[in-house]
């Protein structure tokens, strides 16, 4: 039986992690079908049909799907599930919110946040904030799996010509009402997919001081991250949080500034290719994962860092 991928989108475009989830789905079984649920989402459905790994698209539209409420989505997916062996989506806040609702309706024990497909029923997943890796085998006939997007490459986004079928909408769940979404718009790369991430922690001491981070990020074309301490202190908004309960990032370069390196933070960034730590406490745990550590006062180091960057003739973007 085929794999059903749940597409994440904003009714106009696919969200980037749909491509990573499609890769994971195709590693489970070559026959990947994708469902897209929304309202006026034709253009996103079209883009989904162009992913070469997707063999068929099922598009379900209704006004009550406009805001992606899990209570509305789950029954529509459950209805499709009988034709599929696996249901797959990203383990980001979209998939985390939705998939367990689907799994419970199907009486299936979900496998969350896998980082590797070992076989169609066996997966590798981090537990304890990534301090241990568990190999798990699910014995459920229907398998609900969420995938860690940064552990799978995005699939090709063009060249496919899957058919788009209309699916049947389910009833509206009237006990949940969407009020609003406040998305933080930025011209910077998305934190989850950025090549370089510059992150600040409690050591920044204020939201105002985060402008030092912003300058460096702008210079490097980087996304801005933060530790939970910095978000809790109100220095920066929650969508920047990297860690066990925030986002997981795997950039080519991660620069941790004024971050001590609690295990909960390391869980979100220690797979980065190159890690730089700038901290005045030489004993800070962040140095144990850093490729390059600089023991220094960040308020002196950051202006110097800008100066040195300005001296370079070229900077990779």
């Amino acid at each position: 039986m085929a794999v059903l991928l749940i597409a994440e989108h904003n009714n106009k475009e696919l969200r980037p992690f749909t491509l990573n989830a499609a890769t994971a789905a195709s590693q489970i079984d070559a026959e990947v079908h994708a469902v897209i649920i929304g309202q006026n989402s034709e253009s996103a459905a079209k883009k989904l049909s162009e992913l070469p790994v997707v063999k068929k698209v099922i598009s379900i539209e209704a006004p009550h799907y406009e805001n992606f409420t899990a209570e509305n989505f789950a029954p529509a997916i459950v209805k499709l599930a009988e034709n599929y062996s696996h249901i797959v989506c990203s383990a980001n806040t979209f998939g985390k919110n939705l998939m367990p609702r689907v799994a419970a309706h199907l009486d299936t024990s979900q496998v969350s946040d896998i980082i590797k497909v070992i076989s169609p029923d066996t997966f590798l997943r981090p537990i304890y904030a990534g301090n241990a890796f568990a190999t798990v085998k699910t014995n459920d006939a229907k398998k609900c799996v969420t995938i860690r997007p940064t552990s799978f490459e995005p699939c090709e986004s063009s060249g496919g010509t899957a058919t788009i079928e209309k699916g049947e909408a389910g009833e509206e769940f009237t006990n949940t009402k969407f009020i609003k979404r406040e998305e933080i718009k930025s011209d910077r790369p998305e934190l989850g997919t950025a090549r370089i991430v510059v992150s600040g922690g409690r050591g920044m001491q204020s939201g105002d001081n985060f402008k030092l981070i912003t300058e460096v990020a702008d210079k490097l074309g980087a996304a801005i991250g933060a530790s939970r301490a910095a978000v809790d202190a109100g220095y920066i908004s929650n969508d920047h949080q990297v860690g066990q309960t925030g986002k997981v990032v795997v950039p080519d370069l991660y620069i941790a500034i004024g971050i001590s390196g609690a295990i909960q933070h390391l869980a979100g960034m220690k797979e980065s290719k190159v890690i730089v730590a700038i901290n005045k406490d030489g004993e800070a745990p962040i140095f144990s994962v850093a490729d390059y550590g600089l023991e220094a006062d960040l308020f002196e180091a950051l202006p110097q860092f800008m100066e040195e960057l300005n001296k370079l003739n070229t900077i990779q973007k």
Partner: protein
Amino acid sequence: MKILVAVKRVIDYNVQIRVKEDSSGVVTDNVKMSTNPPDDNAIEEAVKIKEAGKATEIVAITVGEEKAQETVRKALAVGADKGIHVKTGGVLEPLAVSKIIQKIVEKEKPDLVFMGKQAIDDDCNQTGQMLSALLNWPQATFASKIKVKDNTLEVTREIDEGLETVEINIPAIVTCDLRLNEPRYASLPNIMKAKKKPIEEINVSDLGIDITPRVQQLKVEEPPKRKAGIKVANVAELVQKLKNEAKVI
């Protein structure tokens, strides 16, 4: 209004996790255990709602072995009125836990169920959503702000793109983010008082549900270790290394 709060006993968040040599799991013997951190936020929020006069009773529930009861006792010490301990041994999956709590919800008839958004041991992030599905109740996950209205809750949810606000009709499930509030410490007099509060013990076998695990844990391993890096002397050296050695800028 009655609030049921689910709490889980986990390895304390400050403990360095060690994997067992036989790859069967992680070491839990002689390791400090605590309440799952966002479950503390769930209790705190329930207590605040009661203090504001909007709830009349808070019931704390845990599912697990004998010692799991410590988490319920702690919840009683910070303001829960009554405890429930569903006794089980062995591996418990979120699906099984949500089926157990569903049974308790049918018996206790709470208006709200609160719990942490994820447990820091298995990092599954499933139980609240599964329980909502089984009860066909609304779910507000990853809550960082809760406003109690007449028959609804207005909940601000932390999502990857920023914040989302939903209004959910009661009865409902809320899973709590760490930013929802600042959990209080139990005072010594309240810890003493909590010892007199009732904890109902229920054997899972009396609930008549199948909690057999569906997912086998084949092995647990240490993650690959990062090679130790170097300390650089100054910013100029750092930039030179990033440019010429790591070639990332």
